């Protein structure tokens, strides 16, 4: 993505990423973790603020640091890094609250033209998967790197 992004650090296996948001409330450490689900090859994307003193992650806090697009672009960049290494994996994404899910939907919609070049993108609606569309209020999202034959 050509959009500005924050520099990323990662665990050795590229399963957990950290970056620092910089905005009107100063620096806020963010963590993105890919957590295996019970379904083989499907990972749940966990995203939240990291308390630098305790190491605890909070996925409900609304930082409102004035850098939403840069944060979303950085989270999207972790999906590229993760699926570069784990190319057959699916990544499931759902917000901790309806408003957070809406934020993810806005992020996917904003970057969809670019994401769609490299990923299969599905939205969860009424217990089924549909190809992502910008005009639909999906409840969750599933992406996988397009498989090159």
């Amino acid at each position, binding site marked *: 993505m*050509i959009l500005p992004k924050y520099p990323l*650090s990662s665990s050795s*296996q590229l399963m957990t990423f950290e970056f620092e948001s910089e905005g009107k409330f100063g620096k806020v450490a963010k963590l993105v973790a890919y957590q295996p689900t019970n379904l083989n090859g499907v990972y749940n994307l966990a995203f939240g603020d990291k308390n630098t003193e305790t190491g605890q992650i909070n996925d409900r806090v609304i930082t409102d640091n004035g850098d939403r697009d840069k944060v979303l672009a950085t989270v999207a960049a972790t999906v590229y890094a993760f699926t570069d290494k784990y190319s057959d994996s699916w990544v499931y994404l759902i917000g901790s609250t309806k408003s957070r899910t809406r934020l993810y939907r806005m992020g996917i919609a904003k970057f969809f033209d670019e994401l769609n070049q490299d990923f299969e993108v599905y939205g969860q609606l009424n217990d089924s998967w549909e190809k992502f569309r910008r005009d639909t209020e999906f409840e969750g999202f599933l992406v996988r790197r397009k498989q090159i034959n």
Partner: protein
Amino acid sequence: MNSSNLLTDLKKRKTPIVKIDPSLNQYDGQILFPEKLEKANQMLKKIGLPK
């Protein structure tokens, strides 16, 4: 490639350059948000993956 072209190339990269930080290894495999993961597991059990 000169440094200007290299900079342009780096900015256009979709896959980011990532610095490995072993202190983050502690989070690998740790269930950070159990309720959310359980919700994901239930949903995947119910509707599976796209056909």
